[in-house]
């Protein structure tokens, strides 16, 4: 009877997750969707507690401790720090799945196969072959471990605790392949001999290998490719949870984990498409590290002063603002909002053009501009803006680089050739805000900066935008 109730609750919670994800996909229902999915989570936890026989002190302590830490982290993060936080949470989820796998293995090894399987059968009503449980444990540990260290490296790169440049060394691919083969071999071996005396060492070995793969997989990926990697790791954390569900034969774990895994993959593919690259190319390409022979840019970068820019903007009737990661770094979103308000008061039509991979995670710019209270009708996707770009008086590029580089359109030798970009170069005048003269994160020359209609505004983006807005105030 209790089992029926628990499983009905699990079904209810799966339905809530599905509606949650569905509603999260529409602007007017998104918040409701997130809340309903959190109710689903609560139901799943309550249902699980109904099994009873748990060590209640540890359960209560663990949930309390985790909730407090989670709430504090969620409350204290700044919107510019969002990509790091998502990466970090994701890593915790992966590590949790790894630990679930480890704990289950310890039970299996400690109590013996027979008692493990009969305890499982008593709880779920299903008897599984020992090999199945062992392989599920091995795969959970592997995917969980990769998710964990992959996310930690992504977090370190995003929070600039380590260089965001791709790190590549010779033999990297060979090492990855060997590690992958070793881990799969280990999973098979564990499936065949789950309780052999050496099997404990094998599981520890699997943990170590999975952690290594996570690091080696993320190191060669550059900062600009982070949106792809974050969504992929998000997907993997779901897969790890689903695999953990196969160990303990738990429906809700399998279904919810799988939903996340699938939706993460879709998001990953959307990001890849926005860069015109395959996922294999992102993961193994070591983008920008090799660097082919690109066309040398002709001409020079012409600097302008804030006053010059003001006179042009003052006369502009239509303005497009193109934000990039630099806006996030300079925390310039509020200043940018102020400038756009000034321009509108002055009679100009202001649009924001958002490239799908601008920033370090999917939708990064939208979050920052939402924080600064920019109405979302003003935020436009790439295609509609490109259609009107030739009639735009001024395009202001704030800390964006690759997503406006016309080399993607006309230089087949460029590593980003073929990537859809925002056609800022078609505007009548272009102002690019940039910290210094060097090449950006990806290490590529940007042909836009050498364009005859482009003027550079060097300096901190926030300071520049603020002083531009101040000119209007005079």
């Amino acid at each position, binding site marked *: 009877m209790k089992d029926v109730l628990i499983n009905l609750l699990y079904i209810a919670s799966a339905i809530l*997750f599905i509606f949650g*994800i569905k509603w999260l996909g529409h602007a007017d229902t998104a*918040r409701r969707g997130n809340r309903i999915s959190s109710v689903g989570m609560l139901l799943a936890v309550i249902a699980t507690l109904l099994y009873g026989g748990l060590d209640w002190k540890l359960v209560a302590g663990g949930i309390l401790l985790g909730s407090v830490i989670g709430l504090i*982290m969620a409350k204290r993060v700044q919107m510019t720090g969002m990509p790091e936080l998502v990466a970090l949470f994701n890593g915790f989820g992966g590590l949790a799945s790894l630990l679930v796998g480890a704990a289950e293995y310890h039970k299996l090894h400690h109590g013996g196969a027979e008692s493990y399987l009969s305890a499982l059968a008593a709880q779920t009503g*299903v008897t*599984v072959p020992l090999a199945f449980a062992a392989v599920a444990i091995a795969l959970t540990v592997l995917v969980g471990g990769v998710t964990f260290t992959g996310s930690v490296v992504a977090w370190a790169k995003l929070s600039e605790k380590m260089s965001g440049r791709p790190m590549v060394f010779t033999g990297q691919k060979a090492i990855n392949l060997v590690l992958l083969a070793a881990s799969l071999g280990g999973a098979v071996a564990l499936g065949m001999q789950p309780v052999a005396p050496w099997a404990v060492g094998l599981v520890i070995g699997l943990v170590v290998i999975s952690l290594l793969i996570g690091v080696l997989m993320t190191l060669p990926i550059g900062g600009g490719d982070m949106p792809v990697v974050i969504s992929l790791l998000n997907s993997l954390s779901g897969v790890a949870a689903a695999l953990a*569900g196969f160990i303990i034969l738990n429906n809700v774990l399998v279904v919810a984990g*799988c939903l996340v895994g699938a939706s993460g993959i879709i998001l990953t593919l959307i990001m890849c498409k926005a860069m015109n690259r395959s996922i294999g190319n992102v993961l193994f390409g070591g983008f920008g590290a090799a660097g082919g022979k690109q066309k040398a840019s002709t001409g020079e970068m012409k600097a302008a002063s804030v006053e010059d820019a003001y006179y042009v903007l003052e006369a502009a009737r239509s303005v497009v603002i193109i934000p990039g990661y630099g806006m996030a770094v300079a925390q310039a979103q509020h200043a940018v909002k102020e400038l756009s308000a000034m321009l509108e008061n002055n009679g100009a039509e202001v649009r924001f053009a958002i490239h799908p991979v601008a920033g370090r995670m999917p939708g990064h710019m939208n979050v920052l501009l939402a924080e600064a209270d920019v109405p979302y009708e003003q935020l436009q*996707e790439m295609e509609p803006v490109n259609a009107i770009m030739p009639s735009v008086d001024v395009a202001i590029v704030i800390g964006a680089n690759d997503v406006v580089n016309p080399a993607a359109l006309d230089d087949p030798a460029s590593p980003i050739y073929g990537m859809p970009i925002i056609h800022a170069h078609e505007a009548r005048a272009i102002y690019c805000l940039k910290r210094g003269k060097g090449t950006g994160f990806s290490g590529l020359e940007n042909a836009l900066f050498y364009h005859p209609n482009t003027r550079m505004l060097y300096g901190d983006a926030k300071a520049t935008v603020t002083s531009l807005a101040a000119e209007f105030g005079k």
Partner: protein
Amino acid sequence: MELAPLLLLLFAFTLAVFLGFELIAKVPSQLHTPLMSGSNAISGITVVGALLAIAANEPPLARWIGFAAVVLATINVVGGYAVTDRMLAMFKKKEKP
């Protein structure tokens, strides 16, 4: 050995994959971040597995590993939902005219 229940689980797994693809396929890019962090919170569902690892009759080591897993998964769940809600509250605000 009864394989039917396992196949049923595989069945649920497969359907969930397709459902996940369908649900996300047409999401506007402005919602990509909340969608990601919201689904990230759902992946903390592994907390269910973690809780079951701390059964009172299990060896202490398994329980303590389970405890660590519960803490981590709960951070993932609670933090993930809270931060997504915070983000979406900002998106909401600008619906004023």
